[in-house]
């Protein structure tokens, strides 16, 4: 009884989102018009903002049923971020070419948001799996939402098949881990994992779990779905897959590894490799960086470029995860959040071009600086930030990440991860090529398309501009994002481990 009440208390924001879904679905029963789409969006935003406010005013700490649902400042921070990203996606959706079943589309976005929030707020393997599925299944649907478009349907099917197999691997991996350690809660796992670090079954479970998560964050070689899905899915869906889903996926992977398996890390230092998740992660990171950056070079579709860029960026983030330790975790989260904002913004620009010019091939971007100078400028900010050039946020993300990776003491010496960092920096230079190719088409190549009317401002372009400004601002004052993140992480570390269910503020 008490647990149920506490659970309700802890999950109030999620509950509000569920109610919002119901309201939106009911409102969606009426005939679809443009005004109604805006009304539905308003309902969604009201519900989302209310949930966000609830989130902020919740108690600081909570822990129900041995980690099934937890709350601490860091979790709350990530929950707010994924909720915000989902809402921005909803704003994008209004501008996209989704005309039918718009209410259902918004509802699916909210479902995804609930899944991501639950995923962020759990420390139990079972709950992790369930939440991950709660994220994945709406995303499959969102990817295939353009039912008339065969590309969309194909993307959805591919996403679903690969996702299903990955989920199977993840579940199998979790089973093996449970079988060898007897724990599903990450904190229990942390107690029992060190005893079995050299048990082959446990290691097999570890690999399988990482395959499952690797799919979620689109790391090589579990990445193959990503370009097809990014290209085929409606742009707003792809934006959510690229941003929110990635943030949630990385947070849970970080929790899984850093909390649950801290004792089974092994070592990825080139001089003293030890079995564990660190060498796995380092290898996956290196391959992702190489493959993602190289494959992006030959793409002609901006969405595919963004997909491969996302794969490479996942490599950077995995590299950050391989450097365990408090500051490294913060730098990964900083990087992930900055990346999510940037990618979301870039998809915003893509959305605009797609709506105006009917495609997202590179040549559709030609002369954008004339027809939509503001958006062209935004695209410049996003691409340069992704390439990691100062003074934009992406530079500081990479800087903290690499600095964290080089300084990580757990790697047997200060420069144990140098080999991965060296690869990362080399291929970061390669990545400049395809980021700048996009900008070349935006700024340099004259338009071959007939001139279109100058863009009217709408909510989506406004949000895109806002994202560009925030990327710029975080670049100038990294503390804007870093300080709250650091404060939250410190507060989360101070959390009493044997927490009573819900503690008032």
């Amino acid at each position: 009884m008490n647990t149920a009440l506490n659970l309700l208390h802890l999950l109030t924001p999620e509950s509000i989102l569920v109610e919002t879904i119901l309201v939106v679905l009911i409102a969606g029963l009426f005939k679809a018009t443009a005004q109604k789409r805006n009304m539905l969006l308003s309902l969604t935003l009201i519900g989302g903002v209310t949930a966000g406010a609830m989130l902020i005013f919740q108690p600081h700490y909570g822990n129900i049923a041995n980690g099934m649902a937890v709350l601490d400042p860091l979790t709350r921070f990530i929950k707010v971020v994924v909720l915000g990203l989902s809402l921005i996606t909803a704003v994008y959706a209004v501008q996209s070419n989704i005309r039918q079943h718009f209410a259902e589309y918004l509802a699916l976005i909210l479902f995804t948001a609930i899944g991501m929030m639950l995923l962020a707020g759990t420390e139990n393997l079972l709950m992790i799996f369930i939440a991950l599925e709660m994220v994945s299944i709406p995303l499959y649907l969102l990817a295939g939402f353009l039912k008339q478009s065969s590309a969309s349907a194909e993307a959805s099917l591919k996403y679903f098949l690969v996702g299903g197999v990955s989920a199977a691997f993840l579940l199998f991996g979790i089973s093996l881990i449970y079988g060898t350690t007897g724990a599903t809660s990450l904190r229990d796992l942390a107690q029992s994992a060190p005893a079995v670090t050299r048990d082959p079954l446990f290691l097999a479970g570890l690999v399988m779990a990482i395959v499952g998560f690797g799919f979620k964050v689109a790391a090589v070689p579990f990445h193959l779905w990503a370009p097809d899905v990014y290209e085929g899915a409606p742009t707003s869906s792809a934006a959510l897959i690229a941003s929110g889903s990635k943030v949630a996926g990385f947070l849970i992977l970080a929790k899984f590894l850093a909390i649950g398996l801290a004792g089974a890390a092994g070592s990825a230092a080139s001089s003293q490799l030890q079995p564990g998740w660190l060498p796995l992660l380092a290898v996956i990171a290196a391959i992702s960086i190489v493959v993602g950056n190289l494959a992006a070079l030959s793409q002609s579709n901006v969405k595919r470029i963004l997909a491969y860029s996302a794969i490479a960026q996942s490599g950077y983030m995995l590299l950050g995860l391989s450097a365990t330790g408090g500051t490294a975790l913060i730098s990964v989260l900083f990087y992930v959040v900055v990346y999510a904002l940037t990618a979301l913004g870039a998809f915003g620009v893509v959305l605009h071009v797609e709506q105006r010019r009917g495609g997202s091939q590179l040549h559709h971007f030609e002369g954008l600086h004339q027809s939509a100078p503001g958006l062209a400028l935004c695209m410049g900010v996003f691409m340069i930030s992704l390439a990691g050039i100062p003074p934009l946020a992406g530079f500081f993300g990479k800087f903290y990440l690499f600095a964290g990776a080089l300084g990580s003491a757990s790697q047997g010496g200060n420069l144990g991860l140098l080999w991965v960092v060296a690869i990362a920096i080399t291929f970061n230079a390669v990545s400049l090529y395809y980021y700048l190719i996009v900008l070349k088409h935006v700024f340099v190549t004259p338009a071959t398309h007939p001139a279109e009317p100058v863009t009217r401002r709408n909510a989506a372009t406004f949000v895109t501009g806002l994202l560009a400004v925030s990327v710029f601002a975080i670049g100038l004052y990294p503390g804007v994002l870093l300080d709250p993140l650091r404060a939250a992480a410190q507060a989360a570390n101070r959390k009493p481990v044997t927490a009573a269910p819900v503690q008032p503020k």
Partner: protein
Amino acid sequence: MNTFLLLALVPLLPFLAAGITALLKREQRGLSATLVIGAQTVACAISLFLFAGAITAKSGAIVHNFPWLTFGNDTLRLGLLLDPLSAGMGAMVSFVTLLIFIYSVGYMKEDRNFTRFFTFLSLFSGAMLGVVYSNSLLLTFICWELVGLASYLLIGFWFHKPSAAAAAKKAFITTRVGDMGFLIGMFWLYKAAGTLLFYDNGAGCLEQAALATMAKTMVGGLAVSNIIALLIFCGAAGKSGQFPLHVWLPDAMEGPTPVSALIHAATMVAAGVYLVARVFPIFTATGAPSVSLTVVACIGAFTALFAALIAVAQTDIKRILAYSTVSQLGFMMLALGVGSVGAAMLHLIAHAFFKALLFMGAGSVIHGVHEEQDIRAMGGLWNKMPLTFATYAIGMLALAGFPLAFSGFWSKDAVLHAANLWPVSQLPFKMAAAAAFLTAFYMTRQMFYVFFGSYRGHTHPHESPVVMTLPLVILAAAAVLFSLVATPAWPWFEDFLAGHNAGFELAALREPGFLHVALTSTAIVFSGLLLGWFIYGRRPLSGVDPIEAASASAYNTLANRCYIDELYDATIIRLVALTGEISAWIDRTILQGAVNATAGFSFLISYLSDGIDRFLINFGFDHSCNALREYGSGIAGCEGGRVQGYLRVLGVGMVVLLAFLGWLLV
């Protein structure tokens, strides 16, 4: 209001006015003059207020230090200081400066660049007051250099005249020579004392602990304190025109006359004397007649006599005054050298009043006879410019040291008295006495040339406007009235500097030592005046100077300033030029050859590397770029779009990872 704010305001107000007027347009003449004079009036009022406060205060010095720069764990602090010395000097400087500003309104009325002139004047005033109130040698040095800059700008104010531009350069470079010594001395002082603050609750560089350390440390047989003192004295000698760095001061008369009055008579040139007086404790760290003080005394006495001699044979009205200034600065240095700060400061302030008066009087004369400066082309001006004549005569008598009613008499007597009591040698006293005699003589000569006899020029002299004569009257009054506080009977000023109250004692006048000196100097002054009248006053003057007629060679030597400039030209400047020639030759032949060789070599390398670049690197780079792109296509091509393949890769990936871990395990 607190004292620190007031102290800071005194230099800051003129600085602020300078900053604002610098932005004004050339046409906004009235506004710029109003701003500058207004700021100066307030600064003057504050400094007089502070002076009044210092008179009544019994607490001694007021020190305010504040942090300026922090680097590492060290904080560099600057500070402001109000003690009798700075209060008296500040009051005099701001007051005389204010009068000269007012005078400038009239003198510079016709000038196009009136606004610029006032900007520079105000900049100078701020910097000079900064020197006065500074409590840190570093702040002093900063303001000192700003003063030098302002002086440079003002001497070269009419930069379209080549002579003015050259004089500005000469002044700046000559004083820089002295400033090098100052700078080194400052570094050394920082090393020796660990601070450049003068007073800092016992930790300042002029306080007991630091002085004792410096007096104990010996370098090459000399106490460090003496070396530092001499190095700082280099800077002071440069600014105050002491031999052998005096050459710039007469040339500086190329500047507008108010500038000569302000900078090169009353204030800036006195800064050197003030500096020595300020850091006097370093000079006396090893006891009263120290090595450094002896050097100061000798240089001062020599300069006094030497400059007075040259002044006898000058014909430019301002140059005579310039050499007279050099000579009087020598008196002040002599007073410092024999250990009497009081006499030096007394003479400094008295001199500031009457020398500013004389310069402004000379300016009035020059203005009246239409920019003529040669005294041989003047004459008989006393009835054409009566007010100027009267005030000039007062200034002249004060400078000559005419007894009793003129401040110059008392202050010069104080210097002579102090020199007479110097235990080391009587020679400086005798030289100073000779200089005093010459002073009376050449001033008489000038008076006769300028004001008496018949007019020898070709224009129509006229009296100057009130805005110019009013400051003359005020300064003339000051030159007379200052004698009230300067007599030994009521040595108010000296006692104020020493920090105790003065008693009124007529008996001091009858003190045998003083009486002796006073009578001697009176005799000297009268004989100088008489000799002047005897040579120049009895007959109408012609183009040839009577002395020249008597002994052409001696006169020419003096008229040519003892050939010091020529000596410098022949030695130092030739040496510098020679070094320059040699450097140029080395540059042209050896270095340029090397450069050319390097260039040729570089060409060779660049041809080679161009070849390499073109055939190897570009080839390689292009190829690797293409290869990269091809790899990219290859990798991208891996995904044929068939989901079965995707899943296969996924499975294979897992197996590979498992194998990898297995390998690590084994």
